[in-house]
């Protein structure tokens, strides 16, 4: 596998924010996830749960609810605004004040023609969805007390609204409240506190199911307004409800971190009359489950503990497969760390600031597995706070460590860094070209003479950098006319090639010297999760969300023989069954045969000179190899060398002095920074 000196970096205090809202678009199989900091993430469930897009948050924006109307995404928040997102430019398209105080919820009817929002002032407002915007239509009868949750009847004729201590049913055509369902308060001390109906669903047979802060899940008959059944589920709050598409199952999220499934089951077999029965309990969260979606084959849940959990419903699968495994998504599927390979600097990107660290140094020698004594401790050189309300969406550090750039939704900032021994000085480059307003991705060329910025419609701006000024050079535009944003960008060491990947799964290769499109890599069905250009051969390695690996020769404009062989033989099942995508590809300049990859749980070196493993070979063979003698070893070697010593990896890069930088963020330290969960009586405590 080779021996490396490893910088085990654990000082990146990356802290994901809590999940607040979730909306699943069954048509496109995309899940929109709203976080507490106002950012929105789009996951493509059809493409191995890949995090396709991230819309950065903003200080003043908060998201209480998300809602899809066709392919359009709306959100509403406590700032009283409804926002529609521009998913192509990853920014809010427009925001509209609803004039009803904070908005607690937003839902669309099944026809997609109207949006209903529930406001603090007790009104349910209907908005008509127009081609390009939405327009206020009317208010339903105003109630006393806030509207916490809303649910349309599938016919669109009625709306159930969860309020304080009650549920109202509105007739949409007339706008009058037709039913008033009183929700009991909790027992004991909580008797004096109002019950908040956190969530409500309206089924097509006019059954209303509600979840409230007294820990009850109640089933109501919407025709008569009578309570059918009460399930006391928790001592704390029932926060989220979600119904399956065929309305045979409802999942409930509670403050205890449990997700409880209710199913519509006939008590005696072969009979028609069914009732809602509490069935399974899933406990994958430690904190509040705030957002929940029951999709075709799985239950998706998220909450205060920041992880997104996809819990497959095993009865929907015929056999054990990739899709039937439990999946937890902790980290974003993109890089938050930039590494200056020559200077040994690390740039950490937070939503609100950037941190620049110098790696520690050691001159010790030791056996493999030893930890070396540090001569110089790692040092935080810079803490750069962003300007303005918008959160940082991308950042870059040049490999010489002399340039630093970051972009928010509204502006791009470029800094010149000067480090002489222990002094560091930072100067903002004052006049940036006007065209450079915001970027989805930033990237410096390896000789630090150019800055590439991915702009709207998959175009790339080239900015020439020099000591005195920075100058706009050219805009590279793809021929395909794709409007999707670029999420990956890399350039070759010799400065000739630039490769970009966008959400349409297209990979474009540009010739930077000639400033024109060189070629388009044949489009593969899965989104690229990492790309890299080999420093010597100029082959493009692209790894996709479905774990496939391709090698494409830029010069010859075709897949290399190794790639064809790999595709022909197929990847090992254990490789394909991994559940986090490869987020970074890098190369070893000293050994051109080696490709370095990593995902969250492992670090892998692919040695192209070695035979590929077939399905029968032992895939994780490092332990076996170590036990074998020198003669036997070569017969057991295969191309994939996997190391699982380092866990919860955010980034791996190889410095020019042949030392590896492993940026770890242990999940345990994330959990320890979370607020305390609700108190629960545990057995034997």
């Amino acid at each position, binding site marked *: 596998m080779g021996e490396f000196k490893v910088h085990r970096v654990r000082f990146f205090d990356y802290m994901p924010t809590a999940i607040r809202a979730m909306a699943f678009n069954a048509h496109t199989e995309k899940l929109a996830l709203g976080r507490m900091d106002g950012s929105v993430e789009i996951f493509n469930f059809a493409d191995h749960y890949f995090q396709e897009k991230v819309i950065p948050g903003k200080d003043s924006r908060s998201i209480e609810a998300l809602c899809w109307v066709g392919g359009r995404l709306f959100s509403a928040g406590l700032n009283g605004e409804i926002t529609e997102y521009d998913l192509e430019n990853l920014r809010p398209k427009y925001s509209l004040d609803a004039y009803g105080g904070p908005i607690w919820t937003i839902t669309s009817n099944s026809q997609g023609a109207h949006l209903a929002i529930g406001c603090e002032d007790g009104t349910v407002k209907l908005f008509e969805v127009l081609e390009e915007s939405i327009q206020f239509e009317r208010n339903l009868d105003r109630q006393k007390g806030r509207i916490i949750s809303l649910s349309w009847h599938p016919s669109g004729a009625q709306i159930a609204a969860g309020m304080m201590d009650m549920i109202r049913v509105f007739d949409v055509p007339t706008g009058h409240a037709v039913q008033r369902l009183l929700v009991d308060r909790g027992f004991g001390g909580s008797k004096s506190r109002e019950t908040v109906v956190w969530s409500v669903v309206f089924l097509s047979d006019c059954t209303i199911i509600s979840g409230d802060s007294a820990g009850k899940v109640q089933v109501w008959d919407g025709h008569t307004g009578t309570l059918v059944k009460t399930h006391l*589920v928790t001592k704390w709050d029932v926060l989220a409800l979600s119904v399956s598409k065929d309305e045979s199952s409802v999942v409930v999220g509670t403050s205890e971190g449990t997700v409880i499934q209710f*199913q519509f089951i*006939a*008590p*005696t077999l072969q009979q028609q009359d069914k009732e809602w029965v509490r*069935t*399974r*309990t899933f406990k994958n969260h430690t904190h509040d489950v705030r957002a929940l979606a029951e999709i075709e084959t799985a239950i998706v849940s998220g909450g205060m503990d920041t992880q997104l959990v996809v819990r497959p419903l095993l009865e929907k699968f015929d056999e054990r497969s990739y899709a039937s495994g439990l999946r937890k998504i902790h980290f974003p599927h993109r890089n938050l760390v930039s590494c200056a390979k020559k200077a040994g600097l690390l740039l950490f990107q937070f939503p609100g600031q950037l941190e620049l660290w110098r790696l520690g140094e050691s001159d010790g020698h030791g056996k493999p597995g030893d930890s070396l004594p540090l001569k110089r401790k790692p040092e935080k050189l810079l803490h750069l706070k962003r300007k303005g309300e918008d959160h940082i969406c991308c950042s870059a550090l040049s490999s010489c460590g002399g340039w630093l750039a970051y972009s928010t939704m509204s502006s791009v900032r470029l800094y010149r860094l000067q480090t002489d021994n222990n002094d560091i000085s930072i100067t903002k480059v004052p006049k940036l070209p006007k065209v450079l307003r915001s970027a989805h991705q930033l990237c410096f060329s390896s000789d630090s003479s150019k800055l590439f910025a991915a702009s709207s419609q998959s175009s790339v701006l080239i900015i020439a950098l020099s000591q005195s000024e920075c100058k706009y050079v050219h805009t590279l535009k793809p021929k395909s006319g794709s409007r999707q944003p670029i999420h990956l960008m890399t350039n070759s060491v010799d400065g000739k090639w630039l490769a970009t990947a966008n959400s349409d799964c297209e990979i474009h290769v540009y010739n930077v010297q000639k400033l024109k499109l060189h070629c388009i890599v044949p489009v593969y069905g899965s989104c690229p999760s990492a790309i890299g250009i080999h420093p010597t051969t100029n082959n493009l390695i692209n790894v996709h969300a479905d774990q496939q690996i391709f090698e494409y020769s830029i010069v010859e404009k075709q897949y290399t023989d190794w790639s064809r062989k790999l595709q022909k033989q197929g990847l090992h099942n254990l490789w394909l069954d991994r559940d986090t995508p490869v987020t970074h590809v890098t190369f070893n300049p000293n050994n051109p045969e080696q490709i370095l990859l990593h995902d969250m749980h492992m670090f892998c070196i692919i040695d192209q000179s070695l035979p590929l493993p077939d399905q029968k070979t032992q895939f994780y063979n490092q332990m076996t190899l170590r036990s074998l003698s020198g003669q036997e070893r070569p017969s057991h070697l295969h191309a994939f060398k996997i190391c699982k010593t380092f866990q919860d990896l955010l980034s791996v890069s190889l410095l020019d002095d042949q030392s590896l930088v492993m940026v770890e963020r242990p999940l345990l330290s994330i959990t320890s920074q979370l607020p305390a969960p609700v108190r629960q009586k545990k057995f034997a405590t």
Partner: protein
Amino acid sequence: MSNCCFTSCWFLLCAAGESVNVYSTSTEEFVHDLQGHTDLVTGVVLNPSNHLQVYSCSADGTVRLWDFMDGILIKTFIIGYPIYSIYVSEKHGGVVFVVVPMANYKSSELFQLVAVHLPRSGDQEVEARELSAVLCDVSPHPGAVSFGREGEYIAATKGLQLEVFFFKKQKSYRFSLKSGMKKGVKNAFTCVSCHPKEDCIATGHADGKIRLWRNFNQKKEYTYTTLHWHHGAVNTLCFTPEGTNLLSGGIESVLVHWHYTQENQKDFLPRLGAAITHIAVSPDGSLFCTSHSDNKITIIQSCVKVSAIIQGLVKGDGVWTDLIIDPRSKALVLNGKPGHLQFYSLHRDKQLYNLDIVQQEYINEEGLDQFEVVKAAFDARGDWLATVEERRKKGAELEINLKLWAYDKLTQSFVLNTTVTAPHEDRITGMFFSPSPETTMLVTTSLDDHFKAWLLADHSDTKEGFWSCDFVGGYHLLKPGCCSYSADGSLLAVGFQEVVTVWSPASWELLTTLSQPPGAIRDLCFGRLSCSKYLLGTSTKNQLCCWNLLTCSLEWSTPMDVSLLQADPLSENMAAFCSQSGSSDLFVFKPSEPRPLYSQKALCTGKVQHAVFAPRDQMLESCEERTQWLNRSQLYFITQDMDLLTFSTKTEEDRLLASSKQLMVDDSVAVTPFYLLLGKHRRQQLEKQEALTNPMAERTQLPQGSIAIKELLHTPAHVLPSASFLCAMFVRSLLVSRSSAREEKAEEEMESEKEEEDSEGEADPRLGESAAWAPSEEFGAPALTKAQERELRKVKTFDHSWLSSLLDS
């Protein structure tokens, strides 16, 4: 007491050994037993088509149909294979489902569930050969199979698999759980119960979870709910007849009562004493009964109240104390519940009470080291009880407590007098009270090379004395193994490995040493009565020695591997148990002559653990030579399998049989001897009360009750005298003379007084009656003289029935 079932709310049936015991639920008395099986009875179920009959199955390969009210065996069906459990359903009339070993693998561990069509023939004994296999590879555990709603399907669990077989479709569905071994989860199925009204199967699991399965007629879309309260395995599950509640029990000895539709509401009935192994519910749902691992049945009324406990001999983890006879109650005393001593009446086959020795909360959890009572001894009069409890933690120091308990006449139980913590530095091997009536002295021997004598120290300032150490003795740093007092208490023999030392307890002087190598001394025993000059000892090297204490020499010795030596306190006899080649032999002999009075080869398999001679209440006048040694006392012994066995004579057995016949009285209510005494009396009183309050009732009752009418109607016509004669007699019977009525009343009063003594605690209705009368008296006549009052009372006690009878006629 393994498998119990309710037949009605009156009777509880329970399989016990080779018979089925019938208990009354209201009085918890043993009514009678159904005897006939020749091997262990493995299951009892009510005949679904006739609620006065039960089926029982046994390992002897028969299913028997009983009339349990009268204890009559109706039919025997011979299956031919050992039967492990039995199930019936109303829908499947004439068919019983039994679990038998797979035909081809008779010896192996594979079992199948077969349906047995019971042939309809009049014979007492029928061979049922029409077997059809329903499910293969089932668990022989009776709780592992259950019939579903109206017998439409049957659910069976084994290992990690639940199998549901639908009779209509003849199709079975299997549901498996992941073993989850790597996470240390033990989710194997332990028991199953089906909801009686809905299609829901409850299964218990080894990790304490209960799963409620629904939609199980589909291969994939099935679903289940998990309930979790038990921390140990769920031993048993049972739905109530209406299906509104689910009962579960396990090692925690808590009956958990789940509400069927409100799963997180549950009620508990804690502190039931021992792990619950089986739950049964009466058909009307009013009574539950739980059987426990310590040989106990608890009857629970309406889920909240324990109404009765049927306690047999507690079968604890082991018996460490010897079998001891309490001199006062003549009860057998041995380890009972953890940390307790049980007092068990041998004559009534009933537990009297448990004495809490350790006095610490027992934690129902496997693998915990807890204090256990390891030694107990009574003094000659039963005034003092000495107990030793010890706890050996793994790798830690031994903790020993010696406790001395005084008998309190007021409370009729033992009260803790002295606790000696760490009386010895090592394990105590023997403990005996001095049998002499003058001094109460206790001797303990221990592995720490010492024996100690403890005396009750009298202190004038305190009312009660406490115990303190009087003497510490040893012999050449040898470890004492056993000790024994002579019958009069004048000599104490202590066995120090190979050496027997004889001490005088009065002066603590070492009188003599006897040694008979080779082998360490295992047991020591002084002879009694005419043989009191002999001391008997057994050694580990297969020697039984008898020393004459007058000559201090060995009288005789025989090579015998005596594992246990026990002296009869009431005769010269001694019993020696020898273990040879896996079974035990018994020899009864007198020390004076080395020839056995009685010997029994191959008494039982395995080693006899403990034995005791229990004195009889009355001496038997047996003339048979073989059983003469049993005349004064009975020998009880406990085997390796914790079975308590005894010897009985022929005459005794005859008497037992006769008494059981006597008790067969037909009545609608459970009839027990107790009820015979009490119930009749109570009924009489009830009638009397009714008569007093309601003259109408009296009027209608009288003709039936009259002897004359009975005679008139019941005597065949051809033997009756002439009508004129009868008429006169009839009229006379209706007239009640004053004097005779008075006499009757007096008699009755006497009788009831007598009965009152018998039945303590029964509220006396007569008292209430007079209390009710008293105020009316005062209202009627505020100023009555004593004489008047007496007169009035006389009128009151006077029988008014004649008045009403006059009215009637």
